[in-house]
């Protein structure tokens, strides 16, 4: 008999194919459900496992109400702010995420933000969509060259290191701040700063790859933005909570920053519309892991975790041990 699974979110095609083949699931392609519906479906189908993503808040209250036959909850995301891990641990419920598989994809996107922001992709696209019809003068609409610039990376984890590898292809000098220096083979000659504030004055371009949470909340604020050199470029493809958005908007309006590229926002999708009114922003809707290849890999990884736990093995990516 196949294990019974509830999928609380639409999944990419190849993931649905595997769910249909290997699980007993009423909606193998996934269906967007809220927590009440999820609890109801889990009970009605006597489900063994729950596959969710970051839209479903798995707080202590929901975890307490999960039926006993549910033996694992796997989120198809790296972030797990939506899961009360302590409550899951107290109950002995394995919960898992999908790290690693989106490193390259997110690093590609950070590099896209850097290039698109420095080279004014939004303004150029707007010119084209309005029909163009006029050549530009040799000193007009100029962007900032990326090649050879100093790139500051705040947070040198897997994604930060992958961004550094790509940036080296543009002969960039890499600086990074991190709680601890990374191993020499991972740093590849990048200059370490224990203190972000010490690094900021040396960054032509700054990209954030730090964790979310209370210790990094508003890491970039009025004071820290002011430490960047005038004309610096700022990009964020990690967590919206890292940025004081009032301070960022002020720095973009005053011209202290040349431009900013954002994939994440404090409030998503109801982001601060003042960003949309600024010409010197490059804005995309949280697409860091949005490739068919990566989303499929994430879904497969979540299923691998489910299969392991249901077979009595330890989870591959446990959120508690």
């Amino acid at each position, binding site marked *: 008999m196949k294990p019974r699974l509830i999928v609380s979110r639409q999944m990419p095609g190849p993931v649905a194919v595997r769910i249909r083949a290997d699980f007993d699931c009423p909606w193998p392609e996934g269906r967007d459900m809220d927590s009440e519906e999820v609890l109801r479906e889990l009970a009605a189908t006597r489900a063994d496992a729950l596959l969710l993503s970051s839209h479903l808040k798995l707080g202590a209250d929901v975890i307490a109400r999960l039926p006993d036959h549910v033996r694992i909850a796997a989120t198809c995301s790296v972030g797990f702010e939506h899961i009360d891990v302590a409550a899951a641990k107290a109950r002995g419920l394995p919960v898992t995420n999908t790290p690693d598989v989106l490193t390259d994809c997110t690093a590609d996107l950070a590099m896209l933000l850097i290039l698109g922001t420095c080279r004014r992709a939004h303004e150029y696209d707007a010119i084209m969509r309005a029909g163009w019809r006029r050549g530009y*003068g040799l000193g007009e609409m100029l962007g900032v060259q990326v090649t050879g610039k100093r790139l500051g990376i705040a947070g040198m984890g897997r994604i930060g290191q992958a961004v550094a590898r790509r940036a080296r292809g543009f002969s960039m000098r890499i600086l990074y701040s991190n709680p601890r220096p990374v191993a020499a083979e991972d740093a590849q000659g990048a200059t370490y700063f224990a203190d972000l504030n010490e690094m900021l004055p040396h960054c032509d371009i700054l990209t954030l790859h730090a964790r979310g949470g209370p210790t990094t909340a508003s890491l970039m604020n009025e004071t820290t933005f002011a430490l960047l050199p005038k004309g610096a470029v700022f990009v964020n493809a990690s967590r919206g909570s890292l940025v004081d958005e009032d301070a960022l908007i002020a720095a973009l309006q005053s011209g202290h920053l040349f431009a900013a590229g954002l994939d994440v926002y404090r409030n998503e999708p109801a982001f601060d519309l003042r960003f949309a009114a600024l010409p010197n922003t490059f804005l995309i*809707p949280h697409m860091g892991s949005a490739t068919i290849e990566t989303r499929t890999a994430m879904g497969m990884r979540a299923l691998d975790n489910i299969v392991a736990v249901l077979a009595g093995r330890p989870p591959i990516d446990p959120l508690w041990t």
Partner: protein
Amino acid sequence: MSKPVLLVTRRLPPAVEVRAAAAFDARLNPEDTPRSGADILRLAQGADAVLCCPAEKLDAATIGALPATVKALGTFSVGFDHIDIAACRMRNLPVVNTPDVLSVATAECCMLLILAACRRAGEGERMVRAGKWTGWTPTQLLGTQVSGRRLGIFGLGRIGRELARMARAFGMSVHYRDVQRLPAELEAGAIWHEDDESFLAASEIISLNAPGSGATRAWLNAERIEKLPPGAVVVNAARGTLVDDDALIAALESGRLAFAGLDVYAGEPALSPGYLALENVVLLPHLGSATVETRDAMGHIVLDGIEAILAGREPPNLVR
């Protein structure tokens, strides 16, 4: 001794104008008014040198009618299709251009087009800016991965080689097609293809980096598009004339090609209206070299060349 007189046909980046005004008795164009051939002939009276731009057409008649005082012609561009070089040779007028210095900026533009097209940045940008973003879903705006893909470069010249270096940092494998195979140190591991067939079949993402005249005119046509893998991605920051627009638009409409990124167009600044109706293209207004750093460098190298000619030396950027 008085300074030589330099006619500058268009407004230049500030740092370049500062230098031109210091080294020459410079006739600048602060209003950036477009100049006709007749304007140039009038303004060049008594000038020692002319610095022109690709927007001006310097045909044989204009070159022949330039005042005898003009001893050097510079163009603020790599290309010199707008200048009748044979007429310059007849008149014994040396021409300098701006080679090399814009390779990096243009290669950056190619990499931007690759990433933006594959990751659907144009669609995402328009959705966010219009306030139409309703939230994250696992299947929203899924693009295709750039890292680790096979990149085909059509024309492995200076720009193509800079692009190859950038692409390798994304773990891409680089394939190329050129008139002949390059020496190993220039190839740097890129895989040469002797014919279009195998090159196109290998190119999951293809970047055009060749000149757009003669044999390569409309090179990317319906027949060659058919030889690309299904769902391939096309970028062009070289010359609009390399592409058969109707064929490319049809392939993007049908889904035969997944995405395209374009900085150049046949007939620009007018372009095939078909492109504007497509969501799966990223369009830039021919600003491949439009960085402050590159435009300054272009200005300096062309002024270097003009100064060298007037001083009786042969500059390295002399057009032959």
